[in-house]
Each structure stands twice: as C-alpha cells, then as structure tokens.
C-alpha cells in the first residue's frame, strides 16, 4: 500500500500527459474528421480524391509508424518538431481519418428523401446540411465514435516510442526499476477508469438523443 502511494505522484504526472494528448486529439480531430467526411462526399472531384487518398494513407499505416515519421522522418528533411507536437500531429491526423470515415458513412445513411424534402421547402445546401442532415448524423455516429474514443484512450500509450512519459511508460519505468509488477496493475486501473468514464459519458450522450427515432 505504501508502495502504491509512493507510485502515485509520478503516475499522476504520466496521467496528465496522457489526458492532455487525449483531449487535444479529440478537440482537433472531431471537427476535422467531420469536415473531411463531408469533403469525401464533395462534388468537387479533386477534393474527394484527395480525401480518399488521405484516409487510405492514414488508416493504412500503423499509428506507431506515423509517430516515428512525424518526429524522426521529418527531422531527416530538416523539420524538427517538438516530440509532443509530433505526437499531437500524428494522433490528430490519424484519428481524423477514422472519424472522417464514420461521418461519411453516417451522412450516407441519411435517406435521400430528407434532402428532397429540404430541397422542395427551399432550404439551400448549407442550411440542409446544418439543420437537417448533420443533426441526424450525430445521433447515428455516436456509437462508432464512442468506440474510437475508447481506442484513443489506449492508443495514447504509443507515444512512449518518442520517449514521452505518458502513463504506461511511467509504469514501465517503475516495473523495471523496482522489480515488481504492481505499477502495471495501477496503470491498468487508471486506463479502466478512463475508458469507463468515456463509456458512461457516451451512454449519457446517446440517451440525450433518445427523444426521436
């Protein structure tokens, strides 16, 4: 017990790093993913093609490699990013690609009749998107987005590769130094609390949209 108490300060500082990456990624990747999802359905062909390429690239390679590329890869061409910045960048770009696909499929799942009804009432494309389509899309994409957000909690552990001391790396340092498995268990409990909170939050959010079907 004393050992665990002794662990906590450094575990909390690792947790802070983890949470910071988590929230910054979400704040940037959610709106970016939504815009990219809309862009993938654009009538402007080059934009659509670019988005398809983008999604293929960022979904098709490991996030770990993307992290290494953002830091070491860019360094070799003379662009030296802070390790944290490189990590945020890789996470935002990677998660935006996944979220773009979720938004795209959400938008495509809205029946054509909704567009037609808005159209004959005189709503323009932007009004239709903003007032008719996207509000319905959000209800439909909440469950898959909840999945991605839980993945994000766990994926934050990957930035250890850039020697950033997030939660799991702190735990590992303790395990190796102290020769006990306990820090891993403490870290696991931290992750479970975070994913549990995300799960409850999405459950609550989904219930907010129960007023219509």
């Amino acid at each position, binding site marked *: 017990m004393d050992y665990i108490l002794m662990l906590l300060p450094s575990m909390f500082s690792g947790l802070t790093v983890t949470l910071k990456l988590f929230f910054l990624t979400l704040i940037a990747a959610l709106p970016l993913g939504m815009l990219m999802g809309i862009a993938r359905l654009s009538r402007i062909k080059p934009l659509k093609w670019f988005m398809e390429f983008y999604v293929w690239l960022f979904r098709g390679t490991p996030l770990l490699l993307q992290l290494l590329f953002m830091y070491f890869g860019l360094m070799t061409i003379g662009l030296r990013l802070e390790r944290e910045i490189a990590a945020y960048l890789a996470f935002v770009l990677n998660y935006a690609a996944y979220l773009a696909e979720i938004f795209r499929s959400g938008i495509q799942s809205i*029946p054509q*009749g*909704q567009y*037609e*009804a*808005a*159209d*004959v*009432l*005189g*709503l*323009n494309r932007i*009004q239709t998107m903003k*007032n*008719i389509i996207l*509000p*319905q899309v959000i*209800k439909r994409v909440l469950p898959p987005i909840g999945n991605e957000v839980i993945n994000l909690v766990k994926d934050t552990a990957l930035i250890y590769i850039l020697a950033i001391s997030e939660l799991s790396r702190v735990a590992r340092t303790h395990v190796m130094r102290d020769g006990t498995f306990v820090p891993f268990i403490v870290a696991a409990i931290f992750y479970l609390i975070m994913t549990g909170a995300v799960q409850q939050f999405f459950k609550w959010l989904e219930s907010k949209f129960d*007023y*219509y*079907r």
Partner: protein
Amino acid sequence: MFVLQAHDIYKKFGSLEVLKGVSLQVQKGEVIAIIGPSGSGKSTFLRCLNYLETIDKGKIEINGEIMVSNGPNGHAVYSSDREISKMRRSMGMVFQNFNLFPHKSVLENLTMAPIMVKQMDRSEAEDKARELLNKVGLAQKVNNYPFELSGGQQQRVAIARALAMEPDIMCFDEPTSALDPELTGEVLQVMKDLALEDMTMIVVTHEIGFAREVADRVLFMDDGLIVEEGTAEEVIVHPREERTQAFLSKVLMAR
C-alpha cells in the same frame, strides 16, 4: 392564364426513356390526377415539374416564367439557380414516404422553412403552423415527434408543412401508397378539403376513387406518354383507349 405549363417533356435514365413527350397545362384552382401503372413515368413527370429531376428536352413554365426550355441544340437549358429557386417557392410537394424531419417536433417541421427561407419571425410562423395543424386535425400533436404519429398523421403533417410555405400549386406523389388501407381516408379527406378551397393540385395516385371524385381532369399515363386525358367521367368511367380500360379493370378488380 396557366399556373403551370409543361410542353413536350423528354427524360431518360441512362438508356431508359421514361418520358417521351409529355405535355400538361394547369389552370389556377384545377385538380389534376395522374394515374397509370408502375413505371409509366407519372412520378418522374411530377418530380420534373419541381426540379427534383432534370429533363432532357422540353419546356416548363411556372406562373408564366420559364424554368427550362430547349436551347439551340435542342437540349433543355435551365434558368439560373436563383430564378429556379424563386419559381419553386410556389410549388409544394408531398412525398409517398412523408419525409418529415425525424429530429424535429411537428411544430418545428412546419416552422423551419418559413423561418429560414422566408425569414418569417418565429411567433408568426408558429401561429401559422398551429392554424394549419388545426386544419389537418392535428392540433393536439404540435409537440410530438414524427415517430410518435401514425402514417396517416405523418402524411397530414407533411401536407401542412408544404402548405406552410404558402404554395400556389401542391404536388402529391402517391401520397397514400405507403399507408395502411385504414389510414388512407384521413389523408384523402385533407386533400379533398384543399381541393374545395380551390388549391391547384397535381396528384399522382393509385386511388381511382379519389381521382374520380375530386379531380377536374384525369391523365392516364403509360410507357412515358399520356395515353388518355379528360374529365374523371371520360377517363375513368368511359375510357376510350384499350390500355386505359385494361389498367382500370385490373385496378378496380383488385379492390
């Protein structure tokens, strides 16, 4: 003066010719019923009239303004988007599947377009919406959501929603086809009331009884053409064309 004129409309989906020269002139206050078998092009024709589909050839005029006409190369050329959206403002549309906005209450379904498109202020739009809901017999459903209503009630809301934009012409695309038989009556009644108020209406329908009772003019379409046209008495009771007779006997037999 015609409120709507369509002249020699041609339309293809890929290589399939759906409309092969369809013309229609509608006078103010007239109720037109378009009947015919599935795939005859009647819904497509209606959808062309309010720009849900574009035509390949022909001319459409709404309130004397040209929405589309043939260019020098014989292909249809449309007016600017601005002009078209102004013209479409005078057309209301009711769909087979209602297409209400599920995330909006009944009241919001009615007030949304007047507020956003006509810049009507909210309280005025709401008063108007309540009045219309009262007219279609749904005053008590103002704050409900579409999923809480029966199909017939949803379709009545959809009619009220179209009326909220104060159109000159109401288009109905098989408005009762998605309804259980016991629910069609309430929708048809609302439409009859509208006809009695001299609303100009174009109704694509399978309800021969309704066409006979309410329509000033009945068009029988088959295979992309208007085969027969006349009063309900002429087309439904004493059809001259063989195809009309065959269709009617099939439809009337089924009941």
